[in-house]
């Protein structure tokens, strides 16, 4: 990281900056040296920042009109859709925004997996990222409960019921979560409160995430360290900002496609039926971005076992920097890891697919094989692979990627 000292030009600027170095911070952010060979998979960090802010702003407006009460939540959403000026737009941005947020975060995570961004010295960035991801899932889950449709209600029932599997204290925990003996108005009001609060926690973690990033600087597609900052890097502004902006615009075009022309395609039609504790929907399915985990959860006949695997599947990712011991970061130079990376992607997509299907027959079988493979990938394949793999020779520097040290 560049340790330059920044002195503001104006007298007032200097006076201010000596007391609160905001200008130094701004100057650090604009000059931040960034590897010049970053590809578009690196633009998703900026896109995610946009998504978070967009969710917070649209959410703020929605909260002005939404009524967190079991009897009124559903119709207050419809009031927003029908009577609030551009309420439909705000709501569709927020609901599709959640999906786009997850789309971006999955790309961001798999980018890290492919290019080994989780490896030393970026372990803390990675772990902060996983914490962000956990909070995102919690936030999205609670947000989905707020419209108080059938899927809201039954999704909440299924997921909160999981906690009852915890030995001894499980039942009390569920009762405590619900604020009663079933999902009901107290559940809705606390979910609303937490759904409003969690994004601020996420924002805090994102600041730490970027702070931690600015210590070692960015990884890059070939995964080697910056040798000569003057040759290998460009200042963040304007070179990276304009690239991020371009990628964001393309992302927004796709986002707008959903908002304006298929706003309900990613949701479940049952959520336009008001919650009814007496009628259980035929298939209770979570939102698409949680489906792989849902498949893992249902792959074991035992409830506690399912819950353990569910949380295990996420926490195992936190240990990734230590499970993969290869010194080479980028999979471009790791022929074996590259193959298993793609198998993992297929596996996760397959889990997502069966997560949407009833847990029976062939689907259940695929879910079981997929779950077993998922854990095998991180616990067996990766540790072994990273020791036996013969990596390809690395380039000497970012600037001369062709000059391999053959």
């Amino acid at each position, binding site marked *: 990281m560049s340790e330059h000292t920044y002195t503001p030009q104006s007298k007032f600027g200097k006076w201010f900056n000596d007391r609160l170095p905001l200008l130094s911070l701004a100057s650090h952010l604009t000059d931040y040296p960034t590897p*010049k060979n970053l*590809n578009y*998979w690196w633009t998703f960090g900026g896109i995610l920042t946009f998504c978070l802010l967009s969710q917070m702003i649209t959410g703020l407006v929605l909260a002005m009109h939404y009524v967190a009460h079991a009897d009124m939540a559903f*119709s207050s959403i*419809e009031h927003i*859709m*029908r009577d609030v000026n551009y309420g*439909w*737009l705000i709501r*569709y941005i927020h609901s599709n925004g959640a999906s786009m947020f997850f789309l971006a975060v999955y790309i961001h995570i798999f980018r890290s997996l492919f290019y080994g961004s989780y490896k030393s010295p970026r372990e803390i960035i990675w772990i902060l990222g996983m914490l962000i991801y956990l909070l995102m899932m919690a936030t999205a889950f609670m947000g989905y409960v707020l419209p108080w449709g059938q899927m809201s209600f039954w999704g909440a029932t299924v997921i909160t019921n999981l906690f009852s599997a915890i030995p001894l204290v499980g039942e009390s925990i569920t009762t405590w979560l619900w604020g009663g003996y079933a999902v009901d108005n107290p559940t809705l009001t606390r979910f609303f409160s937490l759904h409003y609060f969690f994004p601020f926690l996420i924002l805090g973690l994102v600041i730490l995430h970027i702070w931690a990033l600015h210590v070692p600087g960015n990884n890059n*597609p070939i995964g080697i360290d910056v040798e000569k900052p003057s040759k290998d890097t*460009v200042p963040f502004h*304007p*070179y990276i900002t*304009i*690239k991020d*902006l*371009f990628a964001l*615009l*393309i992302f*927004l*075009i796709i986002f*707008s*496609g959903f*908002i*304006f*022309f298929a*706003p*309900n395609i990613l949701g479940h*039609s*049952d959520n*336009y*039926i008001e919650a009814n504790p007496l009628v259980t929907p035929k298939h209770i399915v979570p939102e698409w971005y949680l489906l792989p985990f849902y498949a893992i959860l249902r792959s074991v006949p035992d409830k506690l076992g399912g819950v353990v695997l569910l949380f295990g599947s996420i926490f195992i990712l936190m240990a990734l920097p230590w499970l993969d011991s290869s010194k080479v970061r980028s999979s*471009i130079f790791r022929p074996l890891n*590259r*193959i298993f990376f*793609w198998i993992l*992607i*297929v596996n996760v*997509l*397959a889990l997502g*697919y069966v997560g949407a*299907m009833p847990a029976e027959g062939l689907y259940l079988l695929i879910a079981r094989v997929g779950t077993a493979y998922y854990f095998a990938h991180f616990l067996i394949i990766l540790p072994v692979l990273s020791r036996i793999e013969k990596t390809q020779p690395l380039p000497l520097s970012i*600037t001369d990627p062709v000059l391999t040290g053959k």
Partner: protein
Amino acid sequence: MFKSNKIYIKILLFFFILINSSVSEEIKIPEHDWSFKGITGKFDRSSLQRGYQVYTEVCSSCHSMSLLSYRNLGEKGGPEFSVEQVKAIAANFEVIDGPNNDGEMFTRPGRPSDKFVSPYPNVQAAMAANGGAYPPDMSVLVKARKGGADYIYSVLTGYTEPPTNFDLEEGVYYNRYMEGNKIKMSNPLSDDLVSYSDGTKATEAQMAKDVTTFLTWAAEPHLEARHKLGFKVIIFLIILSILVYFSMRRLWLRIDSKE
């Protein structure tokens, strides 16, 4: 960057096409060419007006539509009845209001600001009157069913003779597109059930089409505004991204030419 990975992407795509085509046990719902489909989709104004007629004259005796107000019928992007027509429509309904200064509830003719009057005071009453089945509220029905407008239309036109050996209880009817092929609503439509003032022939299919159009608007009253705005937003984003792309290229030339 991913050149060497193209082959994997292809395998992946193939895999999903394979899975997707191999499993489909559900009833296929035929698709129709609705005027409101697609990027520039708009409602057919006269079809909406006819659809409203079918709704009030036929469906509203069982199905409520509690999220709509009479004023919506005159709003832009909907059936667009004139202010006078909306007032007249609303006045046709008896609305319970009150309490008045004596503490009594009273009825008065409807006003445009009133919500659509429901046929039953509550869900239980609706079920009791319909042999235990609840005629669902129609405000968002189109969005609450997989297949949307195509599904609603299919159900309305899907009444056929049951196959032999098909068991139907009392008050249950055979429908090709309902789950389990059973529905507790008798076919609500039959030719010339209503008479359209614009001279359109009221065939069963025509009425089904009109009422489905109306229900789609009811569920998504800002659909036209959404399509219009979306078109503009996307054109704007495309132009802006082209401009940004070329400025980016210019800017990066400084870096790339140094190599």
